């Protein structure tokens, strides 16, 4: 019985492989979206913090982009534009090389390197490989070889960005004797994440401190001080909007932009997590929406993802530099200590210092990058969070979305006003620098 089955199987396989037609392999923007969505999904599963997630988006996109820039003169290579990036090798042969396919393969392979659950990427990859191989074995083999070659090149560059070294650097030391200093927050009281992220090699900005924001109001819990007023404002807004109920616009905005990859919930001994995408991933989602709405071709799609993800990655480096410079305490800690010991923010406080707001900086930077590609009056319906049970929200421009993302952190009770307003400016300034200093598209620059 078994033998017969195996035989039959072999026969089938042979027949199938004999049927291989040498049709050209067509790679569409949707194929690329698929790979981006896949890595997002695996990132959610593996639980990467927002800064680390931003790095995972950037390198694979760059690998793909560099391949396309070899073919399409409308796009310039990023070599020597991104720190320490040397030019990728030329393909051995352009004959039968499908650049889009090679770019996608490089993207997938870089994703595999960056996440933990490789099996999830591998099965996705293998099912695509099987299809492509069936379509055109030769074209696939040549494109795959080149894609993996570029992936290796980018990976070697990536390995020198200090990520590995930062793993063994010291943890953030909690020192509760300084009342302004950040302390872990409920319910998990996790250690501050990625205290050395500013030591990661940036892509475009000169240094992590290049967009160092002005300091927040000086710490003081004296009533009437600017800082105290900001604390009080968070508390008052929170009370006001929670009184209005979950359906209030402000609560909806807070939840829409929560983008917390790991919200832990404790019920007695039962613990569980609700996992969502990161702020960076949300903006990657907006990039996808924009490319689809504009019917962008494959190359422009990759370009948009690449530029956005570079801006986001540098934004995290800049923001984290400030976070562990000012080491500012979160509103939840101060409000519980000084104002109301049973107050809980609408959103769960993320585990790192307050100033500036990461979402604000990242949204600021990403919105500038996207505006540079798609224009300043680009209206869109943002359905990025629908898979996580959240509604669609509509915006008339990327800037409008970024401003809403920023203010959402105050509604969420996890940031003071300064972190939001100065944060979004920090992000825009940084975004502008990235846009001004990167020469990528020779045709689609709208600003």
């Amino acid at each position, binding site marked *: 019985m078994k033998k017969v089955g195996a035989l039959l199987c072999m026969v089938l396989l042979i027949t199938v492989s004999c049927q291989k037609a040498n049709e050209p392999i067509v790679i569409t923007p949707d194929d690329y979206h698929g790979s981006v969505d896949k890595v997002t999904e695996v990132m959610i599963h593996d639980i990467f913090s927002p800064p680390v997630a931003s790095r995972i988006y950037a390198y694979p996109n760059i690998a793909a982009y560099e391949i396309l820039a070899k073919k399409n003169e409308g796009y310039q290579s990023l070599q020597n534009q991104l720190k320490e990036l040397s030019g990728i090798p030329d393909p051995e042969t352009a004959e039968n090389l499908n650049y889009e396919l090679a770019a996608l393969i490089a993207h997938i392979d870089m994703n595999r390197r960056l996440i933990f659950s490789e099996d999830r990427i591998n099965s996705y990859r293998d099912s695509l490989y099987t299809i492509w191989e069936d379509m055109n074995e030769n074209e696939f083999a040549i494109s795959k070889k080149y894609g993996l070659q570029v992936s290796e090149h980018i990976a070697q560059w990536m390995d020198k960005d200090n990520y*590995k070294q930062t*793993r*063994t650097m010291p*943890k953030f*030391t909690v*020192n509760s004797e300084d009342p302004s200093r950040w302390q872990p927050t*409920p319910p998990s009281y996790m250690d501050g994440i990625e205290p050395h992220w500013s030591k990661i090699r940036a892509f475009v900005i000169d240094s992590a401190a290049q967009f160092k924001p002005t300091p927040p109001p000086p710490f003081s819990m004296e009533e009437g001080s600017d800082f105290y007023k900001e604390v009080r404002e968070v508390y008052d807004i929170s009370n006001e909007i929670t009184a209005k109920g979950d359906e209030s616009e402000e609560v909806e905005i807070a939840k829409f932009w929560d983008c917390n990859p790991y919200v832990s919930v404790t019920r*007695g*001994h*039962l613990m569980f997590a609700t996992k969502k995408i990161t702020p960076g991933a949300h903006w990657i989602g907006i990039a996808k929406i924009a490319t689809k709405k504009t019917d962008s071709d494959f190359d422009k799609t990759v370009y948009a993802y690449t530029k956005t993800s570079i801006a986001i990655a540098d934004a995290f480096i800049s923001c984290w530099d400030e976070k562990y410079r000012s080491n500012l305490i979160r509103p939840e800690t101060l409000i519980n200590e000084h104002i109301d010991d049973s107050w809980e923010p609408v959103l769960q406080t993320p585990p790192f210092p307050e100033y500036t707001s990461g979402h604000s900086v990242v949204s600021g930077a990403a919105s500038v990058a996207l505006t540079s590609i798609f224009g300043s009056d680009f209206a869109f319906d943002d359905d990025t969070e629908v898979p996580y049970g959240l509604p669609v929200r509509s915006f008339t421009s990327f800037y409008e979305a970024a401003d809403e993302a920023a203010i959402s952190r105050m509604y969420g009770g996890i940031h003071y006003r300064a972190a939001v307003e100065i944060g979004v400016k920090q992000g825009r300034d940084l975004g502008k620098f990235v846009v001004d200093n990167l020469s990528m598209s020779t045709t689609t620059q709208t600003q």
Partner: protein
Amino acid sequence: MNRPFILLFVVLLSYSCQKGGTRFNTLSAEKTGVDFTNTLTESDDLNILDYLYFYNGGGVAIGDIDNDGLVDIFFSGNQVKNKLYLNKGNLKFEDITSNSGVGGNSSWNTGAVMADVNGDGWLDIYVCAVVGINGFGGHNELYINNQDGTFSEKAAAYGLDFDSYSSSANFFDYDLDGDLDLYLLNHAVHTSESYGKADLRLRRNYETGDKLLRNDNGKFVDVSEEASIYGGINGYGLGLAVSDLNVDGYPDIYVGNDFHEDDYYYLNNGDGTFTESLRTYFGHTSRFSMGNDVADINHDGLPDLISLDMLPDEEIPLKASEGDDNIQTQKLRIKEYGYHYQFTRNMLHVNQPDGRFIETALMSGIAATDWSWSSLFGDFDQDGEQDLFVANGIPKRPNDLDFIKFISSNQIQNKINNTKLVDQQALDMMPTGMSANYIFKGKNDLTFEDVSTQWISQEMLISGASAYGDLDNDGDLDLVTNNLNAPATIYENKTNESANYLKIKLRPNNGNTHGIGSKVYAYTNGTLQYKELFTARGFQASSQPIIHLGLGEATKVDSLKVVWPDNTFQVLRNIEANQELSITPENPKTYTYPNQENSTSPMFKAVDGNLGIQFTHVEDNYLDFNREKLIPYKVSDRGPALAVGDLNEDGKDDLLFGGSKFIPVKVFIRQDSTFAEQEYPEISEEAIKEQVSASIADFNGDNKNDIILTSGGGDFLGQSKALTDTYLVKTDSAYSLRAFPEIFQNASVVKPYDYDNDGDLDLFIGGHTETGKFGKTVPSMLLENTNGEFSINPSFAAVKGMVTDAVWSDFDGDGQTDLIVVGEWMSPIFLKNDKGTFRKTASLAITGLWQAIHPFDIDGDGDQDYLLGNWGTNSKFNATQKQPVKMYVDDFDKNGQTETVIALPKNGKYYPLEGLDALSAQMVFLRKSFNTYTSFAGKTVDEVFGKEKLAKADLLEINTLQSGYLQNNNGSFSFVPFKNELQVAPIMAFVTHDFDGDGKTEVLAGGNYFGVKPYHGRFDSFPGALIKSEKNIILGNQLGLNFTQKSLRHLHILKIDSASYLLAVFNDAAAETYQILN
């Protein structure tokens, strides 16, 4: 191929048929008629998500409800009806629930206890209930015994019909007025996700707060407030023990609280009030405290306490479950929120004469029994030592890390938001926590032997409430457990005639008809067995109201002192074994409890004003584990240095204390009979340095004392100047800095000696670590003195390792003073001095975490033995010569920074000490190889890292953890460990003196160490010990010393006029002085 499988199957089959072990039979429901099953029915509205204690189970109570001499069994069910089984003899029971009217009306019953509440001589039944959440209705029910096999529910009439969140109850007479009062244990359902401040417990809350109820002629009055009983919203009360723990005649209360709330230790003031005193008497407690129990396990007449937690012993659940606290979170909870030290494991608190408790669970071998509900001490094999039964199990492990991190989000998230339903599919993804119950055989040295597989059935169960009683009247204690979703288990004890026993019923002539609170002191062949009669014990249960004594071979009890609850007593003599004795008061006399302070014969008395030595060492905030996340303990907390010597040429010894980072050295100058702090700017100048050792002596031969300060601290890196040592020379009236060889490792000890016999003092400087490279061995140095200038002796290269202490001593009796060096992950090194050159002599292969070495002729044979302070055996390290603790040191992830991987032996294999999160945070590649916790859990260190990788790493080992001494046998040395009382914590320092004034010297030892992660806990229990001789060692708590909860660094004897004082210097605490009274 198939044969082993079949064999296995046969073995399994035969195994499952054989119900029970060699000591206990498990009886089937068919045989006994006890078919009670506490079946849980999960629904959309009621499950582990809606009610955090959904899996806690019901109660069980054992007692003779019809006074026919046969004990009966009552079970309470959570959702099912309660059941009462009448004992018909021969282990046959009859279900009389329907006639007796005790089935119950509450929606959710919890604990059940029997007690003669109305004092008529017949046991009544009290059943607790959770009411007011999840739609639960009803109230706590009191079934008054109608003396005809029926009961009437009269909770309201007695004032006991609480509709709150009760988990258990304990009837006892706290005010000694002859009737039974009640402590009602309630549990919190605190929904806030933050800890909240500890003082939440001060705000009384009806539903969740515990209550003390005084029996005023049959009406129970809530006296909680006036009695100072806490009743806040965060008292997750699961454990409740009543015992006269401080042995003053008034019963005290220990409440075990789940989660972050501290346990409560209520000392009965004897005036109707209690004083919660946990922190004074307990250094730390279990964290997720569950059931507990009290018994005197070491024959000293002091009741000892066990408190259960949920730490698994087996590797798979251990590594797949959420583990210990994050050390910074713990610090925050203690410092900012006001909670006490709590660690996730069972705790065994051994009661001491000064009222404090030494915690020994790890050393005793009972720290990890998985998800444990009920503990019962009892002499189950009747050998005179208390054994321990632990009931455990949980239907689903809600702290499973894969479930929390990878499964719950998809499975639960939307359900919670939308329907509140956790469907079966989601629950099925949590692993089961069914497990076999544990039973331990008590030995006579504070340890227990796990005899679970030999004594009891290894059936996988979820057992909660449990109780003991002699069900078949054969003299031994049988056990009953209330199980979830399975019939109750009856364990028939088969000890029978193989060992002797005595059962005692106590019958005072008042409302406390069963003598709750009576004490029995039984002496047999010079050994004391001390028992108190409190029936509510374990968890949500009460046991048979008898005193049961195991007598082993002894056929009689020599004398039996009964102390009645009213603190009168009588003595019986020559009582035959193997009978049930009923005792009533006969001409009792007033019993006077020995006053605790007077019961000891103090040798030390704390000095008021501390002789002016107002020195408090403050450790800096540096946390080693933030930099080197995998190291086993700190390097940064080895200070302060202490040096004694005359600094102002007045012929009197002054004191110098080292600082810590940015906290300068302090100097105390001897006045007439006290000391006064004096500023020496030139000594204190280098505040950045952390001085861990110091020496005051005349190094340049000008008859004025100079100072050497050696630096450590584990913080400054590389060639930092802050790591160099300091040499200060006295010129005229001031000290000035002199050049000194630059040594950049963290030093541990400086020991001056003129080893080359040229008339000046040379130095040995012990090297401990190179900062950031824990596990890399560093050289120690010999510094030669030439006209007051020091240079490193290049020919001395014999010592490499993490040195902690050294002693100059002529160990071979050749008239030349040799050097012995000890340290961590190494054996003591004997260096024979041959006219100034040193060579290693054959050394013992005892690799340890040695902390101190001290010469003393402990065996009194005239030659020099050496006392050795080591880590002790009361930690999670376990090491033998054959199976040492291993530490691999290498740059496993090739990023330029070394990592340490500790591996511990378990069942012949080696497992990493740390879990996947800790290891992969350092070595990210592990997350690629193990992307679930299940894939990591149960893997050996070889499987995790690969044999080849480990073979390339440096390997350090520990094969000896005990403190002890090197016995000198005609020049060759053998290691002899101290008894277990001296193994409860690291021993850090020794000092010699004739403490008792008998003309012979003794040695005082002190220790404790806190520089470990919550994984190990806190080694805080060692009270110090006076070592008179091999066999004569007295703990400090009997001598007037209080060294517990402090980490000792130095002991020194100060002589002022004719008096002698002991100076004790601690890390991160105030120095103490004691007058030596002799």
